């Protein structure tokens, strides 16, 4: 029925978007990738150096160290919040929601979600003051309850700083999985739970055998998003520790930032960020695939 030209004229609506994307994302990305094969200080013209930057990266212990810290961030921002978020969401949804009403549930959910709307810079200020060595609240609290011996320089001790940052990130991140899982739980057919309850299945059994499998698509989404967010962590490190003490909390994002703007080794910084990009894109594609498969599988069983 339709004329071919008419259908194509929708393409005009895409024009501003495509142009803007080419200018702000595609061009800078290609430039960054290009620069990663050069030796460039940010002024003058870049000098082609082939794979030299990448070869240097492979031997750079600071680089590997920063990626090792990224794995810790994945634990703190993806693994722990997902696991804790699942238990909390299930407890809130089918315990508090059922016996104590929607109001209390909503208030509790809001408390958990609150840190998510906070700018990371502000969260960093709050926590670096709480964790301060001399007059920080945590140390003051430990002293007040008679555990003065446990006082630490939480962010200044190289052996401890990474774990302190991880703790802050759990606090920041927890609300996101919680809210997504609670929304997902509304999808789960209550009859499944009732039937299992009649069969005498306890809360944990129902959690493991009904809630978890039903939430699989959400779990994949949350894990993918949070893992990517963990690999991109910048603001928290900048505000809490500046990558220190002695590089103990350096992460790839912060490492590329200092390489770009403090050491002005632009080519080398570009190589770091290119490696980070490749890893993130690979993870995104894998996550997307798992998610589609889980959604297909679910549609298959419920249909």
């Amino acid at each position, binding site marked *: 029925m339709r004329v071919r030209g008419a*259908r*194509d004229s*929708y*393409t*005009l*609506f*895409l024009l501003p*978007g*495509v142009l*803007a*994307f080419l200018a702000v*994302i595609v061009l*800078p990305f290609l430039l*960054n990738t290009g*620069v990663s094969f050069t030796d460039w200080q940010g002024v003058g013209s870049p000098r082609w150096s082939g794979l030299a930057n990448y070869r240097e990266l492979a031997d750079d212990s600071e680089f590997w160290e920063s990626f090792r810290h990224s794995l810790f961030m994945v634990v703190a921002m993806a693994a722990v919040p997902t696991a804790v978020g699942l238990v*909390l969401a299930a407890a*809130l949804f089918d*315990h*508090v929601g059922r*016996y*104590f009403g929607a109001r209390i549930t909503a208030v*509790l959910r*809001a408390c*958990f*979600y*609150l*840190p998510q*709307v*906070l*700018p990371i810079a*502000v969260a*960093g200020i*709050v*926590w*670096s*003051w709480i964790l301060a060595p001399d*007059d920080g*609240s945590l140390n003051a609290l430990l002293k007040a309850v008679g555990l003065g011996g446990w006082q630490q320089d939480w962010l200044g001790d190289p052996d401890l700083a990474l774990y302190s940052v991880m703790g802050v990130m759990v606090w920041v991140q*927890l609300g*996101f999985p919680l809210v*997504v899982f609670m*929304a997902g739980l509304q999808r789960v057919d209550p009859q499944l739970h009732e039937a299992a309850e009649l069969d005498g299945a306890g809360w944990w059994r129902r959690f493991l055998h009904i809630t978890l499998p039903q939430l699989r698509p*959400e779990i994949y*989404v949350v894990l993918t998003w949070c893992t*990517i967010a963990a690999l*991109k962590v*910048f*603001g928290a490190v*900048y*505000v809490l520790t500046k990558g220190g003490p002695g590089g103990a909390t350096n992460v790839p994002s912060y490492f590329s930032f200092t390489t*770009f703007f403090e050491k002005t080794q*632009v080519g080398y*910084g*570009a190589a770091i*960020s290119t490696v*980070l*990009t490749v890893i*993130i*894109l690979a993870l*995104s594609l894998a996550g997307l695939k798992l998610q589609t498969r889980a959604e297909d599988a679910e549609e298959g069983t419920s249909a």
Partner: protein
Amino acid sequence: MRAALRRYPVLIALCLAALFMVVPFLIVTVNAVKSPAEYARGGPLSLPDGLYLDGLKDFWERVDYGQKLLNSLLISGSVAVLAVVLSVLNAYAIGIGRIKGRTWVLAFFVLANMLPQEALVYPLYHLSKEAGLYDTRLSVIIVFTVIQAAFGTYLLSSVLARFPREIIEAARIDGANRWQVLWRIVVPVSRPTIGVLLVFFFIWTWNEFLLPLVMLISNDNQTVSVALGVLQGQRLMDATMTNAAALLGVLPALVFFLVFQRTLTRGIAVGAVK
């Protein structure tokens, strides 16, 4: 009876956990209204004797906080509106126009959404200098409009793909052209999703750190996030000032949270599963 007794420990445990989440906000609030002398005497855990607001006032004036708020509002507000417009145009072509190769176009936007800003930051910094846009709020508005629109296009396209086609066909028969169909029918019907996007874009942009940190170096242009982050990074603030900074940083977020709470929780569910 036994069941009723078993209910409370779970509730209490959850309340304690929730309390742990909000305790940092409480401590900050309590200490922001203490005078330095009080703080020196009682430490961070004592309750304030009265309301001491000079710390907040000093901090406000010292960093010209009103200007920072204005910058953040201007940048986040413009980005929210412009990014929604861009997303609607893109999604109209992809979701309703079903242009040829739309799967690839959509994949392109999804990938753009996944790219880490670290891989864009130096070229953007360099290009904006060449274009004379470095250290202007406009540069940050342009960049985030495009970055947020990547997500918006992805979400709206999937919503518009399920738009009832009869409505569009009927409007076309009545003689409406494509623009009219878009602004008079598609946009009003998609208002709930558009509302979610506006709120998200606003808060995400408000909270952004890396790119504004690099692009906005002069005091007059900085956002709340950047100004506070830089101050903290310099390690020059004493306890009272730190708490004033933290409280003034928390307050806008708290206001947005209370105002937009429904949209936020609904939106996360929509965004995550689509």
